[in-house]
């Protein structure tokens, strides 16, 4: 294999590949990136056995071929090369080394045979559709804060992407929860997605996917099967196993009969919560909300450290209510609101509370109160 490629193009292609590679792993080949050169293209493939990323870039290929080298090391070398350099990669089969040459810099990296590289078995996707990047970005960005980190409930360690029925017809829906808060985000159902099986996209995949979604004009080709999900742009293909488990029936968790309505400026609210939470006990982070007509009092009373209180002018016309929450959960939920006021719907101090942005039902959050 022998090729030359512009440094910037190479760096971009490698960035995604090396981020999939697990830093601590015991199988040497998994630390490597598979480089394949053919025609006018070079591709980089990396995997952690659950996720595989394949990145293509145009290159001047002198001699087709394939080999594997340390993904992190190659990325580091390319990153440190001066901008605009032309990088020559050439494999010396006899010595088992890959030579990287740019200007006066010369590197040679140990290789492992390409045959050892585990390529993820391709599978039959039962559903293929395309979706605009901003839409997928919104679905995952707004849901991912609620992903659980509890390994005992592994089926919550991802975003449940599935087809459902929203207020105005069928939707593509992303749901995540850790048992304390829940996010349910809807988007217009893309054409061809109707028969898609529901899948739990693992957290790491959600994070890797994010890098494909930055371009507002991009269209992402999505393929889904019972066991795998694939997101592809013309240059990058991200394939991931999905979590083998059943996502709990979240619909019965979302309250429908909450009538006490609080409307508040989300930014002001978040700032005030953050301020009073300063004195809350490190572990419980409990904040009390006391509501009466058009008035919200946020308070913290931590016997060991102190007390805090702050009053906010809000819109509230229902009976008095006192309810406690974990400050962290409130802050995370409030920070999802970016356009309008936050609307909270309460039932009693022991029941789940619903939050949405204005009257927009396409992004709904549920948070569980705590005893205070």
């Amino acid at each position, binding site marked *: 294999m022998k090729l030359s490629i512009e440094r910037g193009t190479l760096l971009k292609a490698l960035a995604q590949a090396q981020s999939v590679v697990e830093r601590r792993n015991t199988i040497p080949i998994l630390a490597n990136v598979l480089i394949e050169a053919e025609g006018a293209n070079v591709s980089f493939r990396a995997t952690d056995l659950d996720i595989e990323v394949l990145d293509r870039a145009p290159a001047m290929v002198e001699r087709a071929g394939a080999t594997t080298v340390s993904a992190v090391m190659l990325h580091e070398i390319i990153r440190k090369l001066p901008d605009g350099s032309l990088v020559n990669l050439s494999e010396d089969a006899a010595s088992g080394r890959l030579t990287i040459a740019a200007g006066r810099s010369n590197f040679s990296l140990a290789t492992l045979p390409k045959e050892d590289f585990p390529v993820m078995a391709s599978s039959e996707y039962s559903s293929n559709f395309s979706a605009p990047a901003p839409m997928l970005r919104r679905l995952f960005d707004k849901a991912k804060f609620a992903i659980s980190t509890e390994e*005992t409930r592994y089926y919550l360690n991802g975003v449940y992407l599935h087809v459902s029925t929203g207020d105005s017809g069928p939707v593509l829906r992303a749901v995540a*929860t850790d048992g304390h808060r*829940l996010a349910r985000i809807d988007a217009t159902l893309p054409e061809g997605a109707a028969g898609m099986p529901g899948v739990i996209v693992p957290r790491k995949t959600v994070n890797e996917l994010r890098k494909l979604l930055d371009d507002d004009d991009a269209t992402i080709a999505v393929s889904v099967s019972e066991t795998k999900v694939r997101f592809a742009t013309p240059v990058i293909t991200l394939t991931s196993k999905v979590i083998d488990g059943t996502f709990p029936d979240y619909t019965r968790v979302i309250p429908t009969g909450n009538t006490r309505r609080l409307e508040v400026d989300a930014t002001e609210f978040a700032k005030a919560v953050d301020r009073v939470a300063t004195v809350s006990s490190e572990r*419980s982070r409990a904040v009390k909300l006391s509501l009466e007509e058009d008035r919200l009092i946020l308070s913290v009373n931590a016997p060991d450290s102190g007390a805090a209180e702050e009053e906010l002018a809000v819109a509230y016309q229902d009976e008095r209510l006192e309810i406690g929450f974990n400050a962290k959960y409130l802050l995370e939920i409030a920070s999802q609101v970016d356009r309008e006021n936050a609307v909270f719907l309460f039932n009693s101090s*022991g029941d789940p509370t619903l939050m949405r942005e204005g009257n927009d039902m396409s992004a709904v959050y549920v948070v569980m109160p*705590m005893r205070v």
Partner: protein
Amino acid sequence: MSNLCRDCLTQFETGARCPACRSPRILAHAELNDLSIAHMDCDAFYASVEKRDNPDLRDKAVIVGGGTRGVVSTCCYLARIHGVRSAMPMFQALKLCPDATVVKPRMSVYVETSRAIRALMEELTPAIEPLSLDEAFLDLTGTTRLHGAPPAVMLARLVKRMEDELGLTGSIGLSHNKFLAKIASDLDKPRGFSVIGRAETEAFLRPKPVRIIWGVGTATQAALDSAGIRTIADLLRWDRGDLNARFGQMGERLWHLSRGQDHRRVNRDERLKSISKETTFFDDTSDADLLDGHIWRLSEQVADRAKAKHLSGRTVTLKLKRADFTLITRRHSLTDPTQLTDRIYRCAKDLFEQSANKGPYRLIGVGISDLAPEAEADLNRDLLDPNAPKRAAAERAADAIRARFGKEAIIKGRALR
């Protein structure tokens, strides 16, 4: 020289017998009235309780222990003559002493007896640090004026009262720190009373093997051995810095302890770090139903203990010992601490199901750690488990019933498995 008669508690200056009652059981030591840190250790506690409660056993060798493959918990001094020791497998003990009567442990009786002893000790000092049911450190510093008698007298009175009122014998070690007091109580068992004064501390320790030092187990002993250290005298030859360099923190401790220096206080409230319960099966098992029943019962015991102590735990640990003695421990941190059987059980059960190890098991244990006051417990609710508050309320109600009508008044069907 201060002398004390251990039978009638008379104090006198000279003589080999008590001038009042002519008893030969006297204590004589120059520092007798100046020492105040003591270690009390009951003699063959479980076996003594059994002999007390069943006079037929009095002249027989008694081994307390249980199960077909149980080990010896305690054995009386008659059995010890035959070579039976604690922690020895039962079959081996019975080979050594075939006439021995084996008694199953009656834990509740021992606990009750231990409380009675504790009550007697409380009369001497509030500074009591129990090490187990049958031994404790006592600090009697500054109590002489209160009791109108020096610590030695009060301690002799304590063991006398234990004999008279509870029918149990104990041995006392009296010295100027915990390390030496503990060594002393072991010197003259049973019914012993040994004193190690400041003056003879070094001479006493010098010829002793390093094993006598608390915390020196097989591993440390091997390490010391390879450094040519076998006795305390060997240790004394080492420079403090060298000991530190070679053995780290342990070296520092060895340097102090070999000189008879121990500055640890007698702690009344050794703060609880974890609560755990475990059980060893009569026969190794991989029966999921049976194990499930055990997980439930152990969770319940842990929760009961936590509730009694007004504590809760954030981390749940499941311990499994396989038939080949490999130990598996799995732990999980909850989002908020709990003291409920229900939550402990569910968590332990998840851990069990995900342990991905094949049985059969010989032991299973459940515990909570990362303890917090109960006021912080069970504040958060789980969205995905809407019935949890109902189960918690049911558990509290069942607790109230059990508090009133006894432990067996209401139990879960699951506990019968």
